[in-house]
């Protein structure tokens, strides 16, 4: 019994060491590719948000895109929102946040994104996954038929988890980078 325990501990230590080793070995080119993959997921999220928010999107398509957006996120991810007038964080689940976005009571909604984006370093966390934060800025414009307009700019700090995974496809072992989004901090920005 104790031998098995020792063996298990040894295997565990080895797997920890090897995972730390393999993480340390990621070349700059590979890191760049992972960064750009993470950025692509953020762009996808931006597009999905624009589609869900747009009043021209058919209901069924918006619902489908909500499902697709949820697939980008890790389970239990939350959106933490604060405004200029209310600086403490309000927490929402991703689905209620997106459904709220779809149901906004404007006749026209236009969501666009600033060109600017900021990518943090990817940091290794104790479970062997990498975590990073990508910051983007969103323009929101809602118009009612009576001509009233609401505009704001929000900063979105989006958690990105990157994990090396393997799967078997057609008899081949495929090594892939699983990029999942996590918690999102939404801050209203002063003009």
């Amino acid at each position, binding site marked *: 019994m104790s031998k098995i325990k020792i063996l298990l501990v040894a295997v565990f230590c080895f797997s920890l060491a090897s995972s730390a080793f393999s993480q340390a070995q990621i070349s700059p080119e590979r890191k760049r590719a992972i960064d750009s993959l993470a950025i692509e997921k953020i762009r996808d999220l931006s597009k999905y948000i624009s589609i869900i928010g747009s009043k021209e999107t058919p209901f069924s398509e918006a619902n489908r895109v909500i499902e697709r957006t949820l697939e980008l996120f890790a389970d239990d991810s939350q959106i933490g929102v604060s*405004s200029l007038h209310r600086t403490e964080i309000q927490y929402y689940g991703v689905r209620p946040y997106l459904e709220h976005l779809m149901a906004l009571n404007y006749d026209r909604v236009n969501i666009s994104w600033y060109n600017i984006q900021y990518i943090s370093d990817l940091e290794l966390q104790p479970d062997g996954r990498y975590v990073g934060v990508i910051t983007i800025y969103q323009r929101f414009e809602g118009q009612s038929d009576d001509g009233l307009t609401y505009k704001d700019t929000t900063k979105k700090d989006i958690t990105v988890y990157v994990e090396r995974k393997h799967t078997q496809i057609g008899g081949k072992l495929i090594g892939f980078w699983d990029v999942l989004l996590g918690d999102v901090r939404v801050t209203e920005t002063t003009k």
Partner: protein
Amino acid sequence: MKIKLGGLVLILCLIQLSVYSQYFDNFVEDESMLYAHTKQVNQFFRRFNGEEDRYGERFSVNNPLYQNPTYRRNFIELLFDQQSTNIDPLIKNEFIYRCTRPEQQNFLDFHGGNWFAEVKTSFNYKGEQKDLILFLKLQEEEVGSKWVLINVIFEPFFNQFVDAKKLPEEEQKFLHPLSHELDFMNLVKVFKSKAVLEQFAEKGFKPDYLTLFIYEFRNLNLQFITVEDVKFHFFQLNDWYLELSKFNRKGNNSGWLISNLLKITKEDQEILKALIFQE
């Protein structure tokens, strides 16, 4: 869940109110302003160390501007809260000069230790909403790193403890040195109701608020509500203390900025830490 939905309704109402009361325009038209903001703490590190350009693109190690002292000197100046009255300009200049001496530059290191976060949160304590400050530090692990709790400041906890030295003379009590001969039977007097137990504790006794916090949380007396504010304290650079705060305001001087700077000896650093922890 009810609270969340309530929040959603409230936000909707707020949006509605602002829509119907005015033409509400809060677009940031000047994108260059967003570039200027120090958008992440990570960016503060990189800017302080001169590891990225003005647009947030990382320099390669071979780039002559990478950790270039002159480039850093100009950039560090911009990393200070320009509206702060706490910071002595002379001290600031000396700090910048000392950090960027070409022969002996000082850098900030994310994994270098000696810095911690102060997070102002809000908890429900026995049915009442109260502020609670959590202190966290980055702890290195066998694989990667993580933020861990190191201390707590919570007013109701402070009120639980009495400084025994400040008790009036007639109230000061002790266990006499031969109590043991009576099998400590006199403990009954120590534990009579409302006794100030602190005076029976050893010299240098300090309450451990983190333990207390965990105990109260476990007993369901504390429920987390939200995060209100975050700042950081840096003791990583010899002889210097930096406070890093987040600003959300117009203009280029916004985002994560140095909100306080002190020139401080190693001994005084411990005193300052005790002050921050309100010990």
